[in-house]
């Protein structure tokens, strides 16, 4: 489980050989280091066992396959019990927020979509809603664009939950959960590919609307997919929810009650598993969520099992929303980008034998007939639009909790600062509260039930 085992000792070792090989010269040595690099494991265990009074600090991760990406957990053990747990993060820091300050507002979408790569469409939506709020065009977003956003987000919520359950199951040794989960996710990714051209990191939602309208046949494809998905979710339900082994593994594990959730700013399924029905889709609707009928489910166990239960049931709720949205989209052929030509991204994509590019009709207009359109096209692409100085915070309900975007503009064509409140980051700080006093094996279950994605945590 560990790359290295560190010993802290109360008194200095009698041997004059250096015990802490990682201490700098002159630095006080904090304890004896054992590196598990081949050899007989029993030798190390024997040496460790010869000093029973010492506490053991184990580095779990960052390359550990069960810590959900490059998360490093620093666990202090007493036997099998964890006396102290700390999360080490930052291994996937890519400076996305800083980079966004050097790109136009529209280009920012292509960056922020790469933060939490399991739920790219939520990050895009949060960012675009914040930009639109700054521009003061929230009311002018076409209804069809909002509906497409909801459709994409709800499908994305399902894929995110499936990844959470799939990888979570695999970390506990249940590969069937993973194969079923990823099989169902694949159906949705094909729909994403059909609509946005990409399976992940779509950059599909843009300030003012969405990049392009749904292709012909998309609604039909989703309609045909829904019963299959429902069947797949039912399989997952059967596999997991009443399975006595899984229940024995998860019930009561990773407990974090409502008080703890509130104190740590935990949101999403974790908070709902503690009995508080906080769901921003209901509490402060955006993108027209108030039009759709769905339930916010809660549980009271506040443990890993309840979070799993909620995720399974939330997927069914998301499907309910998807069904309502595609009905709405079929009756609303409206535009998918704001009217304002000073803001709307000037692209009309079309697929032809030469691939996908700007449609010939659009080319005809900007190159052949309207110099005004051509100037707008050039200005918007090179310089971008100006956003009035000010700041805006918009939050959306992501699969992991409240995903907020705080955008600050100094009146220019690039953001002065964009900051994201990533639920993975906020929820991850609950690791200590959930793991301390538990067994080592429960850490895996507890961390999996938080569903942190390190791309979102480190950004």
């Amino acid at each position, binding site marked *: 489980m560990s790359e290295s085992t560190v010993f802290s000792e109360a008194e200095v070792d009698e041997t004059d050989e250096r015990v802490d090989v990682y201490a700098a010269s002159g630095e006080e040595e904090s304890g004896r280091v054992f590196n598990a690099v081949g050899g007989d494991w029993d030798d190390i265990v024997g040496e460790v066992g010869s000093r029973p009074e010492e506490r053991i600090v184990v580095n779990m991760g960052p390359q550990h396959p069960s810590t959900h990406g490059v998360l490093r957990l620093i666990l202090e053990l007493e036997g099998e019990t964890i006396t102290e747990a700390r999360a080490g993060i930052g291994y996937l820091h890519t400076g996305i927020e800083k980079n966004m300050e050097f790109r136009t507002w529209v280009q920012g979408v*292509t960056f922020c979509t790469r933060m939490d790569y399991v739920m790219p469409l939520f990050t895009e939506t949060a960012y675009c809603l914040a930009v639109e709020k700054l521009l003061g065009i929230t009311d002018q977003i076409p209804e069809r664009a909002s509906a497409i956003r909801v459709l994409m987000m709800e499908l994305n919520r399902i894929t995110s939950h499936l990844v959470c359950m799939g990888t979570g199951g695999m970390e506990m040794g249940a590969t069937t959960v993973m194969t079923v989960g990823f099989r169902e996710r694949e159906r949705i990714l094909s729909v994403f590919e059909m609509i946005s*051209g990409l399976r992940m990191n779509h950059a599909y939602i843009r300030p003012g609307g969405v990049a392009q309208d749904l*292709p012909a046949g998309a609604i039909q494809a989703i309609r045909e997919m829904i019963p299959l998905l429902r069947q797949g979710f039912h399989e997952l339900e059967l596999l997991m929810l009443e399975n006595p082994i899984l229940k024995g593994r998860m019930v009561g594990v990773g407990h974090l009650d409502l008080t703890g959730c509130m104190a740590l700013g935990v949101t999403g399924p974790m908070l709902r598993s503690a009995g508080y029905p906080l769901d921003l889709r209901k509490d402060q609707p955006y993108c027209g969520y108030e039009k759709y009928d769905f339930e916010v489910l809660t549980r009271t166990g506040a443990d890993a099992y309840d979070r799993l239960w909620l995720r399974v*049931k939330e997927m069914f709720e998301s499907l309910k929303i998807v069904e309502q949205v595609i009905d709405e989209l079929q009756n609303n052929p409206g535009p998918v980008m704001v009217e304002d030509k000073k803001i709307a991204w000037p692209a009309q994509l079309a697929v032809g034998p*030469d*691939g*996908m590019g700007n*449609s010939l009709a659009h080319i005809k207009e900007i190159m052949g007939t309207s110099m005004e359109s*051509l100037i707008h096209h050039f200005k918007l692409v090179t310089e971008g639009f100006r956003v009035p100085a000010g700041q805006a915070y918009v939050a959306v309900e992501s699969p992991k909790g409240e995903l907020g975007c705080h955008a600050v503009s100094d009146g220019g064509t690039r953001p002065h600062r964009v900051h994201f409140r990533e639920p993975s980051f906020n929820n991850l700080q609950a690791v200590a509260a959930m793991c301390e006093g538990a067994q080592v094996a429960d850490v895996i279950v507890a961390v999996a039930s938080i569903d942190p994605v390190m791309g979102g945590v480190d950004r």
Partner: protein
Amino acid sequence: MAEKDKPGFFSEMFAPVGGFGVTFATMFKKVKTEEYPEVKRPTQPRFHGRHQLNRHPDGLEKCVGCELCAWACPADAIFVEGADNDDTPGGTGRFSPGERFGRIYQINYLRCIFCGLCIEACPTRALTMTNFYELADDSRADLIFTKEQLLAPLQAGMDAPPHAMADGMQERDYYLGKVEGGSR
């Protein structure tokens, strides 16, 4: 949980072993595994794959060297350098209708993030994205695609530039769709 969803007596009794039913039924299901690379799954038409530089029906290049694609690119993957078309006798010749053409055109596929902003920016549909996705290679130099690699192959009725514009046609006529292949 709502009352209507309450499971019946039997389903409740068999719920703990319901997973075995799933496992058993899976034996009779078609396997979903994709046999890549033996069997290549076709992508969706909108898929963002390798770029292509297109030609007008008479073979002239559509790229006018405006650099909008490079401006739009958030990853700075595109390098363009324009030059003047030279129609004078003995000059370097004409590569595109109008004044300018893209003399140097490079896309660095080590930087490209396939977001598609470049094709949305292109004002002449010179740059499009095809569905080709097998772009892996083992050296830096091979992944910086040059204009020769990106240019679409000549179709029937196309002549390799440099050559003059189609007879009696202006630059604008190219964008209005009046030029046809083999019109020279």
